[in-house]
C-alpha cells in the first residue's frame, strides 16, 4: 500500500508541476492516472480467467488493438479518417512482430504467452504510430509554404512531403532506438524485471527481453512508415496537391 501511496503522491506532484509550467495537460494526467488504476485493477482480476480461456484471450487482444487504435487515432485528430489510418498502421506493425514469433514457435500461442507479447508489440506500435503521425500532421501544417514551393517546382506531392515524413518517422522512432540502445544500462525493461520477479533466471529473462526489444524495433519501424504513408495519403489530393490538416477551416491567409 505504501508503494501506491508514494506513486499517487508523485502523480499529484506531476499534475501540480504541469499546472505551474502551464503545460495544459493537467486533465490528461488525471485521466491517464485514473484509467491506469482502474484498468490495472480490472486486469488483475480478469487476467487469470483470460489465461485459462483461448476465446477470452483473443477477445482481450482485440480489445488491446482497438484501444490502441482509438488512442492513436485521437492523436491524429486533424487527419481525415484518423482512426482507420492509425488502426491499420498499428495492426501492420504488431503483425510484423507477432506473426513470425508465433509461426516459428519462438513464443507459444497459449494465452499466457500470447497476451503479454501481443500487448507489448501493440503498445510499441501505438507509440510509434501516435508520435510519427501527429508529428507529420503538425509538420505539414507548419511547413506548408516550403512544401508548396516544392510542388510549384514540379515534384510529386509524395516527394514534396518526403523531408517531413523522414523527420516525423525519426522522431517517432527515437524512444524505441534509445530504449534498445540503453537496455540494461539506463533502464531494466519491464519484461526482464517481470520475469526475474516471477522467478526466472536473470539469463533467461535477458534472453526474452532481447527478443522483445529487437522485435519492437521492427514493429515500430513498420508502424512509423505505415502511418506516415497513410497520413500522406490523407493529406494529399488528386492533382499532386497537399491539403494541410488545418485547411478544413476557412483560411484568411491568402489574398
Amino acid at each position, binding site marked *: 500500500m505504501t508503494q501506491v501511496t508514494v506513486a499517487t503522491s508523485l502523480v499529484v506532484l506531476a499534475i501540480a508541476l504541469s499546472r505551474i509550467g502551464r503545460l495544459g495537460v493537467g486533465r490528461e494526467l488525471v485521466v491517464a492516472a485514473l484509467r491506469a488504476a482502474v484498468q490495472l485493477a480490472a486486469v488483475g482480476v480478469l487476467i487469470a480467467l483470460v489465461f485459462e480461456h483461448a476465446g477470452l484471450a483473443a477477445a482481450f487482444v482485440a480489445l488491446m488493438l482497438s484501444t490502441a487504435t482509438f488512442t492513436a487515432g485521437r492523436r491524429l485528430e486533424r487527419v481525415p479518417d484518423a482512426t482507420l489510418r492509425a488502426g491499420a498502421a498499428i495492426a501492420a506493425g504488431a503483425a510484423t512482430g507477432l506473426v513470425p514469433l508465433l509461426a516459428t514457435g519462438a513464443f507459444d500461442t497459449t494465452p499466457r504467452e500470447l497476451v503479454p507479447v501481443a500487448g507489448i508489440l501493440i503498445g510499441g506500435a501505438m507509440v510509434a504510430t501516435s508520435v510519427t503521425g501527429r508529428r507529420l500532421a503538425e509538420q505539414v501544417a507548419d511547413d506548408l*509554404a*516550403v512544401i*508548396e*514551393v*516544392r*510542388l*510549384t*517546382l*514540379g*515534384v*510529386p506531392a509524395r*516527394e514534396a512531403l518526403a*523531408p517531413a515524413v523522414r523527420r516525423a518517422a525519426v522522431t517517432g522512432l527515437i524512444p524505441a532506438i534509445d530504449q534498445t540502445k540503453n537496455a540494461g544500462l539506463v533502464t531494466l525493461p519491464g519484461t526482464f524485471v517481470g520475469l526475474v520477479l516471477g522467478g526466472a533466471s536473470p539469463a533467461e529473462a535477458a534472453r526474452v527481453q532481447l527478443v522483445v526489444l529487437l522485435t519492437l524495433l521492427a514493429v515500430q519501424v513498420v508502424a512509423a512508415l505505415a502511418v506516415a504513408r497513410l497520413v500522406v495519403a490523407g493529406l494529399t489530393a488528386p*492533382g*499532386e*496537391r497537399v491539403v494541410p490538416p488545418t485547411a478544413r*477551416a*476557412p*483560411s*484568411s491567409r*491568402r*489574398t
Partner: protein
Amino acid sequence: MAVARGGREILYGIDLRVQAGQVVAVAGPSGVGKSSLLRCLVRLDEPAAGRVLVDGTDAAALDPCVLRRRIGLVAQAPAMLPGDVRANLAYGLEAPREAELREALAATGLAPELLDRDARELSGGEAARVAVARALTRDPGALLLDEPTAALDRDSAAAVETLVRELAERGLGVLVVTHDDAQAERLADERIEVRRP
C-alpha cells in the same frame, strides 16, 4: 474562370490570356482572391468553374508536375528551401548542370558567388530574385508572380520590375498579380482589374 475559397466563390468572370513575351497584370485590392487565382492556374487549388488552357491543352489533362514546370509560380514573399542557393535552384532537377544554375542566376541579375550562400540568409530582394531563378531552372514558358515587390524596399522593387520586363523580352509570358495600380500600369502590356463582388 471562377475561384472559391472555403467553399465560397470569391472571384468570377475571369477571362484572361497571357501570350509569350507579354506581361499581363491582374490588379485589385488585397484579399480579393488574386493569389487564389494564381494557385488555380497551376492546380494548387481547383477552380470553382471554368478551365485553364496551356497552349490549347486543358491544364486538367496535363500531368500537374509537367504543368508546374511549364508555368512557374513565384509566391508572395517566397519561401526558401533548406540549404544553399545551389540546392534551391537544383531542387527536383534530374541532373542539374552548374552552367544552367549560373545562367538562371545571371538572368535574374545575381552573381554566381551567391550559389554557395545559405538561402535562408538572403535579403528580401535577393530571395525574390532567387525564387524567380529557381523557377527559370525548369525552363518554363510562363511565370506567375504574386505581388513580386510587396515586401521589398524601393530600389529592390525597381530592380524586380526591370527583371519582369526582361523576362518578357526573353520570350516568357508573365502574369503579375499586384495591389498596386501604378505598378500594373508601369509593367503590363495588358491590365485586368478585379474587384470585390
